[in-house]
């Protein structure tokens, strides 16, 4: 025994198994720390972006103050800036996008979950999701070259018919150029459909079949099942999906810049040219040499950041509350 202990150097003998363990422990610690670092990096980036947006917009926030958000003058020559016009344009185009996109997405989701022959289910679902893969600049080009001329042709007819309606008539007026707030909203609606439709389809599929079967068994039509059973069950998820689409519509830049007309005006006429926050940033950042101009643009960026942040947080929260509810029931 003694011979063995003497021939084997003491440290090696004692630490061999322990050394392996500590090596693993070290590996684990390194792995843990590095993954943690990557995760924290995301948060740090987010905080950094918010901080730099605040620093950049400080000049405007302190000098113009809250007035920036309620005035619509945008005059780079006199260095007077108000963000209401792009804010208005952003909200209006997003609203149009949702008004058109939500019913269409709802239809797509109902068809895919309830009525679609199984053979078509996969290809159709994939096709809808592929719409989201088209780069936004392609939508912009398509909007400018194909959609705008077509709209320009039909706008006079729309203006002379729908434009005469009481109350909402004003909405359908404006110069027949095919370029403007309405066209931007239309393009956006096509862009948000894949997001909303695929979320809706996914949440509709979480409805327990037993609920639907029972309703069908009681003689309900497909519409009644959707409206009275599936939709109430998945309400939070559906709203979450819509919010996700809204988030995309608010921040979309290139496609909107191509077709919105880029004019700083606030008008109820949807065929008038307008501007959105994202497209004014895209247009003016290059040439903004004046510090006030630069700061005003960054303030717009900050505003957009908060809008999208709030909308996307709400959407996440609603989607997660749905999955919690689902977990409780099953």
């Amino acid at each position, binding site marked *: 025994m003694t011979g063995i202990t003497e021939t084997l150097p003491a440290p090696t003998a004692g630490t061999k198994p322990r050394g392996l363990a500590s090596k693993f422990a070290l590996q684990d610690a390194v792995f843990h720390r590095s993954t943690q670092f990557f995760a924290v990096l995301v948060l740090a980036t987010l905080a950094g972006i918010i901080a730099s947006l605040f620093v950049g917009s400080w000049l405007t926030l302190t000098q113009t103050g809250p007035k920036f958000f309620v005035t619509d003058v945008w*005059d*780079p*020559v006199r260095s007077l800036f108000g963000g209401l016009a792009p804010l208005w344009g952003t909200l209006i185009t997003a609203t149009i996008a949702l008004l058109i996109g939500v019913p269409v997405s709802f239809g797509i989701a109902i068809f895919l979950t309830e009525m679609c022959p199984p053979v078509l289910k996969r290809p159709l679902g994939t096709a809808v999701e592929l719409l989201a893969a088209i780069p936004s600049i392609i939508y912009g080009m398509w909007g400018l070259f194909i959609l705008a001329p077509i709209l320009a042709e039909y706008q006079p007819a729309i203006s002379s018919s729908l434009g005469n309606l009481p109350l909402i008539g004003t909405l359908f007026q404006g110069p027949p150029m*095919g370029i403007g707030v309405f066209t931007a909203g239309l393009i956006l609606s096509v862009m948000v459909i894949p997001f909303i439709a695929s979320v809706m389809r996914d949440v509709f599929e979480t409805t327990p079949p037993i609920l639907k079967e029972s309703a069908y068994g009681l003689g309900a039509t497909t519409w009644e099942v959707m409206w009275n059973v599936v939709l109430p069950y998945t309400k939070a998820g559906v709203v979450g999906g819509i919010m996700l689409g809204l988030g995309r519509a608010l921040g979309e830049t290139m496609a909107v810049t191509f077709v919105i007309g880029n004019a700083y005006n606030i008008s109820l006429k949807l065929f008038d040219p307008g501007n959105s926050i994202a497209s004014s940033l895209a247009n003016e950042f290059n*040439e*903004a040499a004046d510090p006030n101009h630069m700061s005003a643009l960054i303030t717009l960026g900050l505003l957009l950041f908060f809008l999208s942040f709030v909308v996307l947080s709400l959407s996440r929260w609603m989607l997660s509350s749905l999955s919690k509810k689902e977990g409780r029931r099953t």
Partner: protein
Amino acid sequence: MNAVKNSLATLATVLMAGMAVSASAQSITGAGATFPFPLYAKWADEYKKATGVAMNYQSIGSGGGIKQIQSKTVDFGASDMPLNAEALAKDGLVQFPATIGGVVPVTNMDGVQPGQLKLTGPVLADIYLGKIKTWNDKAITDLNPGVKLEGPITVVRRSDGSGTTFIFVDYLAKVSPEWKSKVGVGTAVSWPEGVGGKGNEGVAQYVQRIKGSIGYVEFAYAKKNKLDYIQMRNKDGQFVKPDDETFAAAAAGADWKSVAGMGVILTDQAGAKSWPMTGASFILMHAKQDKPQNGQQVLKFFDWALKSGQKFATELDYVPLPPATVSLIQAEWKKITDSSGKAVF
């Protein structure tokens, strides 16, 4: 052992040769105006063929070019809007023109031939102010007897800040007191009227799409897209067509010495053949060069460009600077020195 030594020696020689090559294959960088970008890109290409020195130019816009040269991230900046004496002095910059081009109003109307429509500066300003709203307005028909004009006017302008806009609105401000007081002059202005297209190509697209529209683009874009240009009445009361000749005529009368940094704005120049919306594009460099060899390379490049490179300017519908102007520019270059005050070129 000897073989190893030999191969080591060879390796060392190869490495050194490689380093020598990389030292001589310098590259210079510039950033700024989009208006002269096609010309600078062509010059860079030809210059590399001729000398092996690469010039990288990023067309990020005049405002960006000014910012980049102020922060010294590039060897030279380019701007369509000349900086004034104070701005130049503040950052210790030297400014000189590199090329001249023209801005052209274009329209899209059925039954009107290119160059058939005639306008004056004040009428153009009133259209852009939104005071003249239809093509059969008396102010327009009086200038164009016999031309069938009708329908509403759609005004198209740039949505982004741009040197092209600067030249255009500078002209409008010179001919219309109302434009000067209400809108003013800048690379981006608060437009009273119209839709905005992004870039020359955006404006060209909108004008081609919208019947009865009027826009303004750099001459090369109007030519490439075969847009219907307009004849303008110049300061001497003559109607002129936009081409190399009328741009050159506007440049010929310029008194480059009258403004610090040669920052002459060539709009509304006198002369029977002068095109009223002509403008020079400028280069900005630091007077004190931190890296004198880079400054020297930049000046070598422009020396080549302003002499041998002028034929490419004509090819691309820019106007070559006259020899007298080039010698003025070279006199200006003497201000660019290294830290000891010795001129780098």
